[in-house]
């Protein structure tokens, strides 16, 4: 590992986010009164700047530090998804924090640092850098989950996320130790070249490393059977943090997961696909069946995110460029529609009255046509109805798997997708046909939330109808792996 070749372009997006976080931290001291919206604006500027910096460097293919930290197209694609997630989460948070009465500048700092950790995971080409990024992200999110201290359920969610998250990091780290033992390095490029001619002594350690890394990543993407924390933590954490967890953590974990497994451990694909397909089947089935039984919308979205982890694993199993590109595209689509759905959840809630039961949505569609239309778009998209990005993503994932001969797996996935229509449309039925004696009133006009909803609804439809340019970007991102 040679650390003398410093690559400033590769560091640039991370530096921008770090500086923004520090500026927010200091600026917080100079703000008097409870209004912290200005800090959100500083964060927004930083996030947009980091996204633009990544996009500008699309053709640079920067990398340094002994090939451990890259800004290849793959990393840039994820940086863009993560910056978009950061921007939308910040917008939501600015309205959400004032609505629950949480005036805390640290919230914005932690949010920026969490996104920084995610970007480090996307850019890491070394298992230890993956670990550092993962921990930066996770520790920030432990704090965010518990930041609403007056609420017991927020503290409980933080404790559960902390214990199980740290447990998962233990597996990941032990897996890295095994990989170091097998290959004498933790950098992915030499690991990939050594795997081509694996000696008999290396093989057991390499397989142990693969299994342990799979468990570690499995926790972070919330795949069954490593999912048990997700519903509880999603329900208890403040809703804007839940949105970041559902989208950002999953995208970042998949970024590192796909880079390690599709690029470095590609040669072992015959071995690891046989561990991943049961995970995919279980995640889809358990996620969808459990979602059917939920009455709380945040828990329902948690199980829906578990099911989506299953669909994404189907794309991983294809283990080729098309499969990888499908995973990247679907993560982008999943990001916009899920953030939109959580924005609706925030819009329906009020101070001291979270309105998180599905029955609270009764009649909402007619009283608040804008919220109703947006929720309809997101729910239909998640259930995989054509014209929306959810369908396009599933189409790419499933066709990549079919080309590799996983027909029966795709049949299970498609059946699951049909099953999921039931509970997504259940929310819509409730909104347009349900009746609730206690009508949710006074959903205030909130400018930031409206902007978030407009953008996510637009993106859900636009990516659904014109997916080709985004898919081409995803394909060229996956092709940049290992060049």
């Amino acid at each position, binding site marked *: *590992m040679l650390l003398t070749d410093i690559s400033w372009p590769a560091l640039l997006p991370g530096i921008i986010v770090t500086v923004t976080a520090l500026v927010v931290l200091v600026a917080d001291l100079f703000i008097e009164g409870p209004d912290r919206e200005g800090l959100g604006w500083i964060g927004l500027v930083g996030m947009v700047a980091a996204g633009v910096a990544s996009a500008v460097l699309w053709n640079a293919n920067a990398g340094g530090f002994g090939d451990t930290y890259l800004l290849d197209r793959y990393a840039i694609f994820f940086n863009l998804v993560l910056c978009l997630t950061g921007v939308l989460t910040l917008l939501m948070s600015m309205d959400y924090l004032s609505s629950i009465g949480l005036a805390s500048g640290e919230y914005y700092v932690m949010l920026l640092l969490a996104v920084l950790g995610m970007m480090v995971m996307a850019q890491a080409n070394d298992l*230890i850098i993956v*670990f*550092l990024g993962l*921990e930066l992200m996770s*520790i920030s999110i*432990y*704090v965010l989950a*518990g930041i609403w*201290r007056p609420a*017991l*359920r927020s*503290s*409980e*969610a*933080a*404790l*559960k996320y*902390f*214990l199980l998250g*740290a*447990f998962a*990091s*233990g*597996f990941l*780290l*032990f897996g*890295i*130790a*095994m990989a*170091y*033992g097998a290959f*004498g*390095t*933790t950098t992915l490029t030499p690991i990939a070249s050594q795997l081509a001619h694996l000696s008999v002594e290396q093989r057991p350690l390499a397989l142990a490393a693969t299994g342990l890394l799979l468990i570690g990543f499995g926790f972070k993407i919330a795949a069954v059977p490593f999912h048990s924390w997700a*519903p*509880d*933590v999603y*329900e*208890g954490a403040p809703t804007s943090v839940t949105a970041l967890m559902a989208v950002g953590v999953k995208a970042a974990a998949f970024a590192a997961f796909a880079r390690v497994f599709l690029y470095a451990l590609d040669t072992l694909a015959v071995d690891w696909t046989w561990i991943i397909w049961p995970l995919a089947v279980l995640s889809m089935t358990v996620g969808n069946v459990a979602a059917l039984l939920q009455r709380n919308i945040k828990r329902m979205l948690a199980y829906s995110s578990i099911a989506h982890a299953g669909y994404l694993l189907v794309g991983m199993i294809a283990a080729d460029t098309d499969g990888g590109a499908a995973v990247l595209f679907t993560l982008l689509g999943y990001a916009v529609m899920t953030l939109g759905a959580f924005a609706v959840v925030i819009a329906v809630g009020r101070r001291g009255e979270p309105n998180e039961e599905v029955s609270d949505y009764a009649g909402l569609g007619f009283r608040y046509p804008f919220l109703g239309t947006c929720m309809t778009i997101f729910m239909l998209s998640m259930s995989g109805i054509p014209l929306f990005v959810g369908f396009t993503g599933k189409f790419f994932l499933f066709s990549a798997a079919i080309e590799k001969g996983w027909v029966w797996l795709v049949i299970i996935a498609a059946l699951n997708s049909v099953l999921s229509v039931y509970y997504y449309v259940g929310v819509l039925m409730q909104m347009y046909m349900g009746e609730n004696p206690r009508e949710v009133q006074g959903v205030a006009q909130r400018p930031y939330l409206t902007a978030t909803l407009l953008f996510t609804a637009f993106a859900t439809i636009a990516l659904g109808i014109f997916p080709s340019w985004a898919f081409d970007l995803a394909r060229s991102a996956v092709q940049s792996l290992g060049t």
Partner: protein
Amino acid sequence: MTGVAPTSYYIALSALLFSIGAIGMLVRRNAIVMFMCIELMLNAANLAFVTFARQQLSVDGQVIVFFVMTVAAAEAAVGLAIIIAVFRHRQTVNADELRLLRW
């Protein structure tokens, strides 16, 4: 190197410590003890790193241990703060008694 135990002994010890940590995490219900089990798992990984570094005569693994110790310290700071926040609400840190969210 006479009198030095072979590498495999250290790896076996490391695997044993890791297993004790993982099983302890699953069977114990006190948040502090669960956290100690996680620390044991991280330190088992550290032992493996140092052992492999010695076996391969490279210094990488020993450097990694410093990273891991730093991360573990940050994690401990946040984790204990969270445990205290929960204790202030419930006067308990027993995971089974935290039933507000279905565990």
